[in-house]
């Protein structure tokens, strides 16, 4: 009987822990868009994989700005006036260009407002885009799997050290620590570097 009570108590305790972990991971969940409903079905794998176009040819802001930037419609048309002009998706693009309207891309990667992430510094440090954004060259539609996960929290809780999911804080910190330890860099670990 006593044992039963003990088990009960333990159960309650665990439940409590679970609940607040769930809450915590949920409350830290950064917004991630569904990549499906892009205005134009843009295949990264073709551009990066097949044609080996450098990421920064289109995302040209990355090396000089906080944002990686999106190619202007004109830049897209630079190639697509001729290349694949017949393709239905490219026709959509041509329409936007004709109407002089920007393409309303659906945002995929978005860090919380309280996080400052400059692409520039990371490009300067010679990081490959894939390190953070995954194997883009193989993606037909670009998507990001990110955000804290409950499973991850639980593994942490029982003392295991799972690799933090991409684009979460622990993941950034891991990389910065590793680079400082191995490559002898000075990647900042100060909170206010990213949170100000």
């Amino acid at each position, binding site marked *: 009987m006593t044992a039963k009570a003990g088990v009960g108590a333990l159960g309650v305790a665990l439940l409590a822990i679970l609940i607040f972990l769930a809450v915590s991971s949920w409350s830290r969940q950064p*917004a991630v868009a569904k990549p499906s409903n892009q205005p134009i079905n843009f295949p990264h794998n073709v551009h990066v994989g097949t044609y080996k176009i450098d990421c920064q040819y289109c995302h040209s802001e990355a090396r000089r700005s906080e944002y990686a930037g999106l190619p*202007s419609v004109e*830049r897209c048309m630079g190639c697509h006036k001729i290349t694949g002009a017949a393709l239905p998706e490219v026709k959509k693009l041509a329409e936007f260009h004709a109407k002089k309207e*920007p393409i309303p891309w*659906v945002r995929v990667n978005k860090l*919380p407002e309280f*996080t*400052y992430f400059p692409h520039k510094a990371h490009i300067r440090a010679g990081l490959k885009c894939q390190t953070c954004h995954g194997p883009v060259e193989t993606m037909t539609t670009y998507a990001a799997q990110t955000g804290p996960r409950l499973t991850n929290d639980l593994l942490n809780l029982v003392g295991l050290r799972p690799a933090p999911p991409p684009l979460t804080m622990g993941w950034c910190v891991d990389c910065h620590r590793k680079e400082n330890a191995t490559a002898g860099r000075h990647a900042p670990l*100060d909170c206010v570097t990213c949170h100000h």
Partner: protein
Amino acid sequence: MKRRDFFKIVTASGAAAAAGGCQQATESILPLVVPNEQIVPGVASWFATVCRECPAGCGVLARNREGRIVKLEGNPDHPVNAGALCLRGQAALQGLYHPDRIAGPMVREGSGGFKTATWEAAEKLVVEKLTALRGAGKGRAIALVSQLESGSVGALLDRWGQALGARPRVTLEPFAYEPIRAANRITFNRDAIPYYAFEDAETILSFGADFIETWLSNVGYARMFARMHSFRDGRAGTFIHVEPRQSLTASNADEWVRNVPGTEGLLALAILRVMVDEGMADRRFGDAVAGVDLKKAAETTGVAAETIKHVAKAFAHAKPGLAIGGGVAVTGSNATETQVAINLLNAAAGNVGKTVRFGPDSAYGKITPHAEVAALARAMAGGEIEMLVLGPGVNPAFTLPSGLKLADAIRKVAFVVSFANVPDQTSELAHVVLPATHWLESWGDYAPREGVLGLLQPTMAPIRDSRPMGDTLLRVGRAALGTEEGKGPLPWPTVEQYLKSAWEPLVKGDLEGALRRGGVFADVATAAVTAKIAPVDASPAKLEGDAAGLALLAYPSLRFYDGRSAISSWLQESPDTMTQAVWDAWVEVSTETAQKLGIARGDMLAVKSPQGTLELPAYVSPTLHPGAVAIPLGHRYTPYQQRLQYVAPDPRSMNPMTILPAATDATSGALAFMSVKVTLTKLGTRRPLAVLQATHDQDDRELAQHVDLRAAREQALRGKAPHEPPITLYADKQYPGPRWGMTIDVDACVGCQACVVACQAENNVPVVGKASAAYGRQLHWLRLERWAEGKPERPTNLFLPMLCQHCEVAPCEPVCPVFAAYRTDEGLNGQVYNRCVGTRYCGNNCPYHVRRFNWFQYEFPAPLEVQLNPDVTVRQLGVMEKCTMCVQRIVAGKDRARDEKRGVRDGDIVTACQQTCPTQAITFGNLKDEGSNATKLTHSPRAYHVLEEIGTRPSVTYLRKVVREHA
């Protein structure tokens, strides 16, 4: 492509990036249709233009992020302000993004309110009216009123008027300093306001000239004042100020002489008399002061004869000195005589040509004399005017004495066109409103003084459907004249083309360069003048109203100027330095009067003049002359501020103009602000003021410290005593990289509040409203304290900018349970908003109480949220925040250095408060770099830490104020 088009496009993408606020599940990001060279999303680009918040015409750099302006800074190349900016300039952004910005053209419906219209329709009405009047040969019935436009824009407006045969344009500036012009006509035979070389003066003798607040060019002269006055810059010139009320300027004086209101002229003559008698001035000046008797003068002015004597000595012995006059007390019926007397002082002391320089004359000299304004008012009242065109920035119904009955006169005008872009008391009377673009969205130029022409260029696309006044006038003008583009008197399609053609001879082909520099600047030779010596009428100013009453000093306010800046909630909440009051107007009453009538702070008083009655809460001041009451001008709330759910302003008027008669200065015809005596009656009700500072008494805690000039000089020679290391059991924190620190020179600080507003603009600090501010919930990261020492009726005021001290042993850090407050590796005291739980323990434990808490979720009503700095988090309710020493600028500075493959150099990183400070009282730098200015200053003998005895070891070092012996 044209920059204007590209702005239109880039604006779209700006919207996505510039948003603060909460996270959305999905959002779309819009790329540019066409790439452009000028703007990289995420990287700020800067555009030079000219501040038009007042006629001082300071140069401005506008920081553009994603097509929207997020911050204004002074233009370092501009000769007037050299990088500094006052609080009004900083707050201009709130005018740009004002929620009440008029959305588009409006036409009055019969007697009722406005209804929106298309530009075509609205302009058509104007054209019809114009053609009708011209057809009837009544061109003279057209009147054009604009603010001071000293450059080509003014020329264009005049040309428009001539083309349509209208009356000569009236430039309306309530503070025109006509007496100075008139006096210069009399003494020097020159109708101009000269350049006063503060920087070269050893002694400045000011008769009411509030040059730190509004007089002529508050940033420019504050800068120069620091040069001649601040101990740091080697010279310790003397500044003597004569005024019945201790204004901010007076409180910066080494000696403040409190005189009977309106007797400045007599005092000046008495000083001249002493100079002549004691052989400190040429005998020729004797006949100018023949009628002046020192003893009688002492009685009338209420200034002791000894004081007059030693002031005279101090002034005469200065090589050179400088006497200036202005401010409300010198706008009485005898203003011109007073200014003449001051001219004679300068002439007698041989300052003319040295510190009083004709040649680089001020633009104020071009303001239409008040006599003509009055004439226009009469004409309107008499029904002679059938069409009135009001440019942006003019609000005569508010800024002119009700004695002129201007509002009524305007109501008599059949057709009133207003170009206001924010509704005000005058645009309410208009029949057609054609919102002009804000000056940050416009082309233009402005010459604050001869030889300095600042160029205005659009720094962003118009945020509302507004058009440049010039474009509209050109269009309707051509339509009325029946000419088309390229022909006739008004050939230019837009004001942009007009200006570019007008600038061509000046910029000599390098327009881009001129725009980048912000203008065309040249030195103007000083013109030689000779002084005409003639007797001066020394009688004090005549005051209307009850002879037993108190002289009303309705003084221009540092924060709101004539009221045009009062639309900014930043300014409403940045305290008036002397009273530390926010959000409300008050009537300043001397202690003597208060005791007589049993008045306490916050009691409602009825201020009665022959013109009417004004009801305001009382502020009891020990320094005000017993014979006077003072009310700041320009206080008004806009509809938007009344909409803010946490602001409950009093709807009744706070404008002393409503009780001023239309009195003028006899000689110059200038508007006389000090022209009436008022009587006070206690209403029995209360309207407590929101006063931020609990007390001006330091209670011997030596927060703001001062040192005697002689002692300071000795110490400076001896150098600083070796600073013994603090005794501690713990190992000192090691800083691998730089260690940031700041020094603040209390001696240089003039208390102008510019830093406070700059900080608010840079760091997305919200306003909290009157009630919260009164209850100690204001969110300013940087506050400017006034500490009064010595006799309460003539105290020595010390101004102490107080911000997070970034203590090396910070009391806030160990108590934070979650490391939201922690020590960074660069000596900052970091505050991580997203980690903060809001226990507020740190706030309690901070001895300086500089930590601020988000009591509510504060609002940034659209479109104000566009102004938010994208590099700074917008804080959520329930978190602590405080000064970060502009960590975003530190990050940016280090980034720039790394781009150039070098370490951070001194001056790479400039905090917002430091950047805007007119007197450069604030210095930020790396304390580990012995060469940095900040480090050098920390070694100064005047260096000290606030509350040093607690052992917090702050990274912010203050330098003691240097007080002169005879202060």
